[in-house]
């Protein structure tokens, strides 16, 4: 049951990011157009939107209450409706364009193989590191998870948070807020949540260098990026 709740708590922000991207995407004929690329970008967008909501909610309510998750689901429903509406509008107004032959997933086999190999290696190594250090290494303990522990509890967590001396402004609070929101959703503080979130690539900016219309470049970017995503 806990595993299911963790999955839901992580998938909801990702879905938020995905739907938000669908609204911005120039080719709105299908929600699934450039699906993999959108999925990769939705990690950053999703956790960004969700953690932004956490801070607004903390300012309003003081701590993470069930109301936050109601808002999150409402936002998800709203974005779904907008994405569907936009798609309908596009279908009724835009002429049918034949898809570019190269965008049908004809990336060279070598690149696909490299991506799959890099993904498998990264996943195996990630699980190995996780087994060695379930709490993570220095940055996880000194920054990310520590800050999440301040944001998670009920009571006056946010005020206690302000007592801390902030020496590292280069560690933004988006990741801790995402972890705290997941903990609040499942109702317990477990190291599995930061581990699951850590598995997602932490440098989505790398993708912005990959032209979206060129699938091959996107796949290369992903395989290079997976290499970068191995936790330090």
């Amino acid at each position, binding site marked *: 049951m806990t595993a299911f709740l963790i999955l839901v708590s992580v998938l909801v922000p990702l879905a938020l990011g995905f739907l938000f991207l669908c609204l911005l995407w120039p080719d709105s004929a299908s929600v699934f157009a450039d699906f993999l690329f959108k999925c990769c970008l939705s990690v950053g967008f999703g956790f960004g939107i969700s953690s932004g909501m956490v801070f607004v909610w903390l300012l309003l309510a003081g701590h993470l209450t069930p109301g936050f998750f109601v808002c999150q689901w409402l936002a998800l429903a709203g974005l779904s409706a907008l994405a569907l509406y936009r798609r309908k509008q596009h279908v009724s107004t835009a002429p049918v364009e034949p898809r570019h032959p190269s965008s049908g997933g004809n990336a060279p086999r070598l690149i696909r193989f490299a991506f799959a190999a890099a993904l498998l290696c990264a996943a195996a190594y990630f699980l190995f590191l996780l087994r060695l250090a379930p709490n993570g290494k220095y940055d996880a*303990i000194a920054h990310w998870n520590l800050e999440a522990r301040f944001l998670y509890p009920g009571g006056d967590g946010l005020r206690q948070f302000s007592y801390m001396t902030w020496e590292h402004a280069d560690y933004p609070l988006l990741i801790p807020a995402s972890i705290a929101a997941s903990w609040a959703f499942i109702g317990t503080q477990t190291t599995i949540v930061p581990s699951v979130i850590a598995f997602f690539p932490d440098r989505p900016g790398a993708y912005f260098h990959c032209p979206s219309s060129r699938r091959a470049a996107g796949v290369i970017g992903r395989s*290079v990026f997976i290499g970068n995503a*191995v936790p330090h």
Partner: protein
Amino acid sequence: MQHDRIPLNLGDKACRVRFGVALIVILSIWSTVRPMEPMFSTSDLFPQEDSVFKYETRFDQVKKYLPADQIIGYSDDFLSRTQNAADAWVLARYALAPSVLQRGYVPKTKQISAHWSGLLLENLHDPKADPYLLSLFPSKYFESQSNAPAPNWLFPTNRLSLIRDFGHGVRLYKLEDR
């Protein structure tokens, strides 16, 4: 007669693209496989217990004594620390969050002073009593020390009254006003 093999001509655009793709593929796989080296050299792929979890348990009892809305003074016996290596201060903050610790016994700012509890937490380490500490901290932390509090954060012993000794080097004091 047509040639089956295309000669490597870097002046040709298609050839340059193939070369670039191959380079990226090799680099991406290499950058992922290379960090996996410890996976194949370690003898303990499945360690039984994590030292950080063990370290957290030393604060289980003292947690109940720490006020949630006030700041607590802190001192430990690690004179030196290595950059980006776990140290007692980092792990104590991690274990005791959301209680807020501040090194030393003097509030650093006016805001901290307003929420100062007057409680002081001492966190001393003895690897003989707790051998797992040796796997958690660099061994040089335990050299030339005999569990003496760090001079920079030394508590004024003449103004301390012990609230409780929780064992494993964890003690909670109240700082008496003069």
